[in-house]
């Protein structure tokens, strides 16, 4: 295994009313691709948000180490600057803020990405082309009135621009038509090739994984990581579903 | 000796919590009402706690009603009781009746309250109902007010409700016309998670004058208020509606919305709308809207395709409003008021046509 980039160790977390994650352990090495699967409501997205530092969820125990640094207590912006990226299932609309100036400011915040206006223009233009995004999109307001597919492309645009060490893609493939799916998966591949960053794919759908080399697969049920295995686990789930894991989780529940 | 013709002027009636330019003459209404002296008489009064309730038409009307109404009526619904028989306040406006009612709905109880005010409309009279309701924790209260009076009559319909934690207050109002009709409704969502829906439907024509003041105070946390007013104005009717959503400091997580939809049919109509949101808390959502106009071009085109002229289309909307009032009247007094007004506006044939369908529907349900 490559050097550990992300180490989620014994994390339990939830909202004020109810616990969601129970003693989750997950290690991701630099440059690795992991897949996180599980039935609806298993807590997959919650784990993504907890790694990002979403204050909606309270961490009740455990630590998150990223790139050798304990980030459990860091705010989301600090985690972002440290190299964590979360692609949202439903990216938020921010009226009045032009996409281009937003991209420019989040890029200038990172010393390693600072560049001249001209250079920036070129870079963004190139990435937009890569994603089949019309340049006119850049002048529109951030996510406002964008279709689901367009929003996901804008997430990919930010991913390629910010070049994070770890990208968590939360159902980035959901609700996309065939063309958009192809573009998004092209974006993910470009990220793997050009940035070489690590990836956690949260997904139901195995199609988007076809063109990726997956290092590890994790299965989450009811807030527990119940299984971990090689890429072949995906095929297994594809054929047999989550039933086996669910009954296993239920069994564990009974044992307690 | 009471002077039969003595009157008193009540000014600043139906005044909302926040006002605007006086020049618009939309801040309040001034009413002249009879004054019977009851000096020396001792009447049954409501328990003191009711006097603390804010009522929609304001204190002057509350004081006037309590001084005119002779005995007040107090009803208590016991904790947990699901009362099936509605509490009915029937007002014969021809006689200028004035009612003062207080209802205490104890924790977890539920009740229907009906105010029905109407008459044949021959005499020039003033009638009034003051209804005050305390809804304790988890109580469910449905208030239906149906008012339709004659063109020379005046009716004051004031209500005040206080809702504690998890209480639900449904208010359904039908203002079906009359010389001067004033509705004032104040609901205080004092407890956490208290909810209210207020729905007013109104029709005014001729020289009718309708004045409405809706006030919802959202005080508890996570309260929800939903206020809808839909009405039709014809001929030279005048209407003023003030609707206030007050998001009081501390009402964290509360949501309030209000919307009025007015159809204006008459050339000489005067329609005034003052929707207000007061917001003293950041973690809340307040919305309001108003649309004022005639039957929309899209609707009109569609209806024209079905063979309706503009006049037919307008009549259709008026019919629908009365039909709604008749079908949803929860008991006979309210039903009679709605039918009587429908007869006046639409003619007996049409009015009884709905009535028959309502009966059929009721039979089918039974």
């Amino acid at each position, binding site marked *: 295994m490559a050097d550990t980039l992300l180490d989620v160790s014994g994390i339990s977390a939830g909202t004020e009313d109810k616990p969601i994650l129970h003693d989750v352990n997950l290690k991701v090495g630099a440059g690795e691709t992991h897949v996180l699967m599980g039935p609806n409501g298993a807590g997959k997205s919650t784990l993504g948000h907890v790694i990002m530092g979403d204050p909606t969820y309270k961490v009740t125990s455990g630590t998150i180490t990223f790139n050798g640094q304990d980030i459990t207590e860091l705010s989301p912006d600090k985690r972002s600057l440290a190299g964590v990226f979360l692609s949202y299932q439903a990216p938020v609309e921010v009226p009045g803020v032009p996409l281009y100036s937003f991209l420019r400011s989040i890029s200038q915040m990172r010393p390693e990405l600072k560049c001249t206006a001209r250079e920036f223009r070129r870079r963004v233009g190139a990435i937009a082309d890569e994603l089949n995004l019309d340049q006119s999109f850049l002048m529109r307001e951030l996510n406002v009135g964008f279709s689901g597919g367009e929003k996901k492309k804008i997430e990919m645009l930010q991913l390629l621009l910010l070049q994070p060490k770890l990208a968590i893609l939360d159902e980035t493939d959901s609700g996309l038509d065939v063309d958009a799916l192809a573009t998004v998966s092209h974006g993910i591949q470009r990220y793997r090739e050009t940035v070489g960053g690590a990836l956690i794919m949260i997904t139901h759908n195995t199609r988007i994984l076809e063109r990726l080399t997956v290092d590890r697969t994790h299965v989450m049920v009811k807030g527990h990581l119940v299984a971990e295995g090689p890429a072949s686990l995906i095929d297994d789930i594809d054929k047999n579903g989550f039933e086996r894991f669910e009954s296993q989780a239920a069994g564990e529940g009974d044992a307690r | 000796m009471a002077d039969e013709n003595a009157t008193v002027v009540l000014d600043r009636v139906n005044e909302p919590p926040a006002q605007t330019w006086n020049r618009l003459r939309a801040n309040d209404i001034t009413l002249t009402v009879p004054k019977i002296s009851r000096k020396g008489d001792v009447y049954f009064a409501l328990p003191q706690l009711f006097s603390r309730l804010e009522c929609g038409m304001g204190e002057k009307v509350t004081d006037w009603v309590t001084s005119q109404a002779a005995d007040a009526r107090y009803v208590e619904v016991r904790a947990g009781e699901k009362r099936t028989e509605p509490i009915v306040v029937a007002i014969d406006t021809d006689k200028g009746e004035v009612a003062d009612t207080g209802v205490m709905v104890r924790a977890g109880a539920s009740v229907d309250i009906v105010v029905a005010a109407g008459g044949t409309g021959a005499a020039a009279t003033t009638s009034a109902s003051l209804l005050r309701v305390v809804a304790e924790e988890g109580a469910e209260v449905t208030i239906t007010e149906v008012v339709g009076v004659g063109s020379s009559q005046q009716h004051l319909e004031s209500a005040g409700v206080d809702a504690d934690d998890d209480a639900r207050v449904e208010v359904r109002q039908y203002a079906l016309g009359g010389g001067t009709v004033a509705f004032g409704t104040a609901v205080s969502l004092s407890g956490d998670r208290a909810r209210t829906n207020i729905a007013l439907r109104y029709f005014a024509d001729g020289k009718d004058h309708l004045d409405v003041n809706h006030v919802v105070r959202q005080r508890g946390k996570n309260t929800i208020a939903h206020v809808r007013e839909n009405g039709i104005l014809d001929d030279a009717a005048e209407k003023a509606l003030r609707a206030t959503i007050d998001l009081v400091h501390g009402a964290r997580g509360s949501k309030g919305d209000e919307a009025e939809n007015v159809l204006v049919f008459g050339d*000489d109509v005067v329609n*005034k709308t003052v929707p207000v949101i007061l917001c003293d808390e*950041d973690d809340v959502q*307040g919305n309001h809207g*108003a649309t*004022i106009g005639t039957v929309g071009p899209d609707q009109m085109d569609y209806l024209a395709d079905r063979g309706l002229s503009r006049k037919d289309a307008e009549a259709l909307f008026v019919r629908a409003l009365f039909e709604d009032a008749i079908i949803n009247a929860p008991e006979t007094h309210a039903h009679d008021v709605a039918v009587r007004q429908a007869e006046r506006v639409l003619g007996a044939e049409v009015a009884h046509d709905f009535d028959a369908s309502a009966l059929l529907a009721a039979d089918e349900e039974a």
Partner: protein
Amino acid sequence: MTKERTQVADVDRSLYDFTKSEEGYERYADGLTPDIVRAISAKKDEPQWMLDLRLKALDEYHRRPMATNWGPSIAGLDLDHISTYVSPKTKQASSWDDVPADIKDTFERLGIPEAERESLAGVGAQYDSEIVYHNMREEVAKQGVVYTTIEDALHDSKWEPVVHEYFGTLIPMTDHKFAALHYAVWSGGSFVYVPEGVSLDYPLQSYFRLNAQGAGQFEHTLIIVEPGANLHFIEGCSAPKYYEANLHAGAVELFVKDGARLRYSTIENWSKNMYNLNTKRATVGADAKMEWVSGSFGSHVSYLYPTTILAGDRSSCEFTGITFSGATQDLDTGCKVILNGRDTTASVSTKSISKDGGINTFRSSVVVGRHADNARCTVSCQSLMLDNISRSDTIPAMDVRNPTASVGHEATIGRISDDTILYLMSRGCSEQEARTLVVNGFANPVSKELPMEYAVEMNNLIKLEMEGAIG
């Protein structure tokens, strides 16, 4: 980090918060008497009708009560201690070199001469009660455009009858108490006349600076845009911070004739001891268009509702406004629209932001007259609450008297959602940056309507307000 913020705040405040000595100025006694009114009129060597109008207005002022059932308190305003006339010892200049050094320095710091060189057709600059600088590009003057002070117009035999015909007709002195006060003691302001069919490529701008402490500014702006003509007029206002109440009670009368177009942009950044009781009104002829762009940032108390009377058939107006209310501010702003012509259209879009205990009230009225067949009006109003010690009220009123009219209103109040903040933070913005970004975006529909340098100024003001309060 904290240090950086303070620096930003300091830099920005110094832009407005500097004062100049009043030594050697002509300052009339405080309070309001016929003698003061006569003295102002005599100083200006006015025609008799104007003095009569002033004295009548003074009467009206003393007679009229303030409405007590609505609006922010003006209890802190003691008119017996407001000087109604303060004049620097200088004559009006048409070259900045002829303006006294300290006053010139003031306007230079505010960037007025620079803007004039780059993007304006003409500039007027008022300092306390008098205009100290007035100039217009030659090519504009050649087209017959007049841009001067009302005082100068009154001394010109060609324009005196025009002023007499229009002055005080759109905003009558009986309109409200402070309109009466205005007519009694008005001084300075602008007279603009754009002849038929003339279209100005660049805006005209008037800048009002109130330097004197405990004083009032009562400028009168009278603009006549003849049929088919086109003008963009910009008004800027600022004052240094004092602890004594200052008063601004100007009046703006705009006559937009048939087929003409007028855009009136304002960025108001009075200091937070200012009572801003300004009255603005436009009457719009057939097929003509009135556009208002209004940004209110300063003042302690504001009562400001630019009014548009759509008198002509097919006339239209657009109102775009933003109000930012911070600590110690109680700003009651909005607009009024009166639709009288047939097929008239009005669209109102406003935003307000409340922060640090600031109070915002959006107040509007839409009145559709009996004869306004097919009149259309939409009002949309969004309020943003940035904390739970501030307040935001929305009080619109509609009065519709025509069955073919259509009037719509919608308003929302809320705060920035946690989701939005989280999304922006997950891309590296600090919470502070995220909030500033969202607020700037919220204000964007207004700033994009402003000339570039004003849009920049507005963004800076927002940034200052957003950053200044933390820590």
